[in-house]
């Protein structure tokens, strides 16, 4: 079986990173809204659902369907024979996904999986991964307490 041809990695990081989405979530959280119920303490709970924030969560969850093979947030492991997706040019990635779906591009698993997605989903995924930095820019997680409170 022919080895699949993956799009080349871009040489420069795209300008758009995760922060705009976070900013969007936070911005929506601070708009005047009814009092939060006690069982809904997330910051975004202070707001009614904004279409953009809800859509961002859904798109991020859809993109996570790629992570088991391509890495969390599309960042592949070092030496991976399967390419990372974060930071690939959106147009090339969309074309590759549609070519897998149509059968124009050979492969092992990808032609079979791509047929399970709508064209619009593949386009949205291409845009999503293109907007991510190829290298992780992970904010430090707060240290976990030793004992959780009861």
């Amino acid at each position, binding site marked *: *079986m022919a080895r699949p041809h993956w799009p080349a990695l871009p040489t420069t990081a795209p300008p758009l990173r995760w*922060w*705009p989405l*976070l*900013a*969007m979530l*936070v*911005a*929506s*959280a*601070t708009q005047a809204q009814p009092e*939060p*119920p*006690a*069982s*809904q*303490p*997330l*910051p*975004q*709970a*202070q707001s*009614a*659902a904004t279409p953009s*924030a809800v859509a961002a*969560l*859904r798109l*991020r*969850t*859809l993109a*996570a*369907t790629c*992570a*088991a*093979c391509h*890495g*969390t947030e599309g960042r*592949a*492991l070092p030496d*991976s*024979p*399967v390419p990372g997706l974060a930071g690939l040019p959106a147009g090339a990635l969309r074309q590759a996904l549609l070519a897998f779906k149509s059968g124009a591009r050979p492969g*092992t*698993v990808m*032609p*079979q*999986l*791509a*047929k*399970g*997605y709508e064209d619009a*989903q593949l386009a949205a995924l291409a845009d999503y991964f293109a907007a991510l930095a190829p290298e992780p820019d*992970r*904010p430090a*997680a*707060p*240290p*976990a307490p030793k004992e*959780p409170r*009861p």
Partner: protein
Amino acid sequence: MKRRDLLQAGAAALALSAQRATGAQARRARVVVVGGGFGGATAAKYLRLLSGQHVEVVLVEPQADFISCPLSNLVLGGFRPLDDLRQPLDTLARRHGVQLVRERVARVDTAARRLLLDSGTALAYDKLLLSPGIDLDMDSVDGLPAAHAAGRVLPAWKAGPETLALRRQIEAMPGGGVFALSIPPAPYRCPPGPYERASVIAAYLRQAKPRAKLLVLDANPDIVSKGALFRKFWAEAYPQLIEYRPLHQVVGVEARPGELAGTLRFELQEPERATVMNVLPAMRAGSLLQQAGLMKPGARWCEVDYRTFAATAAPHVHVIGDAIQPAPAMPKSGHMANAHAKVAAAAIVAELSGWEPDPAPLLTNTCYSFVDARQVIHVASVHQYSAALRNYQPVAGSGGLSAAPSTLEGSYAWNWARTIWADMLA
């Protein structure tokens, strides 16, 4: 403050000020996750990621390390050490702020929304996500509990010390010995797993004990997964070695002290003698779900609302992974548990935010199986939630199998394993 102004300020500062402005008195929502396998570990990480670290996540798992069942058949064949399949869980604490509690759950009180741990500690939750995996129904085979306790019959269907013990039995088998593998009625954990196990052990026996025989005793009417691919490869690579017998339901096992071989008894056929008896008993959802009152009487698997993986029997509880009643054509696999976890985590984050969960979640699955030490076949599928059917359906035209075993897919299989372990744990 206007949205435009906020967007012009630094995002990090915004996150802090928003928290102070709105959450000074409010405590953070806490999600307790039970089970550190493919489902639970993935859920713990993605609850943190998808909530922007705003949900407090506690992962309850007695083991310090995750040991992968996928690829553990290679350990039985002697082609990989078990330690290659071991990953520490504490990366979830260091990188993602997940609180790890190394304990067993004694009981779940869904009415009071709390867990009691073995130590007596109580743990309250806003949302509970259970990923308990499977229990092996040892009592479904007469004599199996005793033979298992004596170390004579080892299912080794959860990777760990038992995998190594079964490997030692295989190595100690005399040259003309018989390895018998019995397969329970579907659904069970990892549909192609038993056939991969037969293949990989055959690859070892072909080299090390060419006079040995491998009996596959299947309760099912045919090979459950990748049947044509396994049959073809067995006929070519292991023609005198593997003997496949469908509709052989093992009901009893006998291993007398001091005797090298034991006896397998069947529902219909005459008993069979074997040197190593690798009996896989019937499987069911982890017993914690029974205690928690989440199972229907007599049910083997837990019913969920597939859109969010919310348990149908209690509010604020989600159940994922091998323990759930499978949707049509949905395998009980690590990859599928990883996919459940992401949909459930997103649904929980949405609910805690007062948002509508995704009305049309999507799941993917890819299962790789080794047919010898290096060549691999796959099955892949995509499952779309249907609001009309309130269930997942394989997307028409999607999914499929390998054309033939290949070493290229062998490299993809190893990469899949490393990558999904990182996706859940790193």
